[in-house]
């Protein structure tokens, strides 16, 4: 990852107080490679490397800072600028809508998030509106049981909007209602219409896009589609317990002008954390 190669590249600047174009170019190339290896969108990589190059050459390193430290600091600043802080939301009553690609981890995350709110002293519940996936109801029931939260499912219903309506009513005594939806992608027009209809019914306070940490260059288009369909307030990055760097989440956040709400780090209901920008960025850069 960037770890070793950025260190090597920055070594070339070590000992020098002047930053010359050639050595900055070498550092920029290494950064580009690391960002691409981390799945950051190609256009965003170019944008980032342009600002890093420009700032490295035009900004004076503060007194006592080596050229090397200066460039490293710029890289971190630029990344933090993009990724932002964890998504803000109140520890209070609210409705949350989860959407995202097939298999990204929505159903698992709904249980994790419900349990997370429970531990904050709020009563959370889940509504499962997936009418398509075989076994979705049973999966939600079992996950809700593990999270020790109520779950509204209706295996015989075939209208997700109807289920959402009934579910929100059934969970009336829950402070936080989490609405899970079937997976869908940007090119499935009917399904995009469906999520719009669900969103319209639910009127969520928080719209979360659930993304697999390993998503590649398609992250930009997918995020764009969900942004246009339902609006994205925050991103949940799942499966960060693997080796994927999560650059797609960075892209999604940039594309939707949102932030990262939670990260998933395992299959169990306790495997959820709030987002830590520094941890995420240093992991992404290798």
């Amino acid at each position: 990852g960037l770890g070793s190669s950025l260190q090597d590249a920055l070594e070339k600047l070590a000992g020098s107080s002047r930053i010359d174009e050639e050595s900055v170019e070498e550092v920029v190339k290494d950064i580009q490679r690391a960002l691409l290896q981390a799945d950051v969108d190609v256009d965003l990589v170019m944008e980032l490397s342009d600002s890093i190059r420009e700032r490295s050459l035009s900004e004076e390193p503060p007194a006592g800072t080596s050229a090397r430290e200066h460039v490293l600091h710029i890289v971190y600043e630029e990344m933090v600028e993009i990724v932002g802080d964890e998504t803000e939301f109140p520890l209070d009553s609210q409705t949350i809508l989860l959407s995202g690609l097939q298999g990204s981890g929505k159903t698992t995350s709904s249980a994790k998030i419900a349990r997370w709110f429970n531990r904050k002293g709020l009563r959370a519940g889940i509504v499962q509106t997936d009418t398509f996936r075989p076994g979705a109801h049973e999966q939600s029931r079992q996950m809700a049981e593990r999270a020790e939260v109520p779950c509204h499912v209706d295996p015989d219903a075939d209208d997700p909007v109807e289920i959402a309506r009934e579910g929100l009513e059934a969970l009336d005594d829950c402070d936080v209602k989490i609405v899970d939806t079937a997976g869908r992608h940007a090119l499935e027009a009917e399904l995009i219409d469906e999520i719009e209809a669900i969103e319209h019914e639910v009127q969520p306070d928080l719209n979360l896009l659930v993304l697999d940490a390993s998503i590649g260059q398609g992250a930009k288009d997918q995020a764009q589609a969900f942004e246009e369909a339902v609006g994205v307030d925050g991103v949940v990055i799942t499966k960060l317990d693997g080796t994927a760097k999560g650059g797609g989440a960075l892209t999604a956040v940039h594309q939707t002008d949102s932030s990262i709400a939670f990260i998933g780090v395992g299959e169990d209901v306790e495997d959820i954390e709030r987002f830590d920008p520094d941890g995420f960025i240093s992991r992404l850069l290798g």
Partner: protein
Amino acid sequence: FVIDEESLDGLLEELEIALLSSDVEVEVTREIKDRVRDSLVGEKKHWRESKEDLVVDALHDALVDVLEVDGFDFDSYVQDAEKPVVVVFTGVNGVGKTTSIAKIAERLENQGLSSVMANGDTYRAGANQQIQEHAEALDKKVIVREQGSDPTSVIYDAVEHAEANDVDVVLGDTAGRLHTSDDLMKQLEKIERVVEPDLTLFVDEAVAGQDAVERAREFDSAAEIDGVVLTKADADAQGGAAISISHVTGKPIVFLGTGQGYSDLEEFDAEELVDRLLE
């Protein structure tokens, strides 16, 4: 006239970006770029061809070469092999293993071959229910055991069932697992060792980025995969993951998953994928 390195480099850089934007892995992209450069430097350029065309053609050939690595025809393999043919499916979480198994059961049925599914995912919430509903929809038999059972024995049971009932193919599902979990990768090795499947198919999704290479490598070393099923190709994925996976494992892509329905399964066509990627 002869092609020189310098004039090539600019074009190759552009192609490199194109490959990276299509999810081909960074190292794989570099190796392919070098392969193309080597095949072109010093070559005589025909007066009619533009430099760009030459490079794109060379790239096209290099990519198809990577993908057509020892391809095997799943359908004819299964038709000719001694029965029952035991196929185990593995891969990371959520890529489409269970759905692909259902699709393949349907495909085999259409070819006059009987199959039994085995739910080796004895861990995930709703896994039994999911595969049972597929089996019901397809009117096929599935062997399931209660959550927490040993996955190896479920698949083993299915093999015994197939032998006793003259079923042609056993389709063994397994729980999604990340290669970062030592326990789960050891469990996969055990399944392979005890069941000794005729085919091990690695399932991954076309929407995956750079990590596709890492997991293909890890799964190949744990389970010696014979082929790959690449799912969610309908999500407008450029298909670079296919290139990366084939390049790194030397194993063929056997099927493409092109949707959530039972008939959304296509035989992989290298030329088609490369044409799309390069357009």
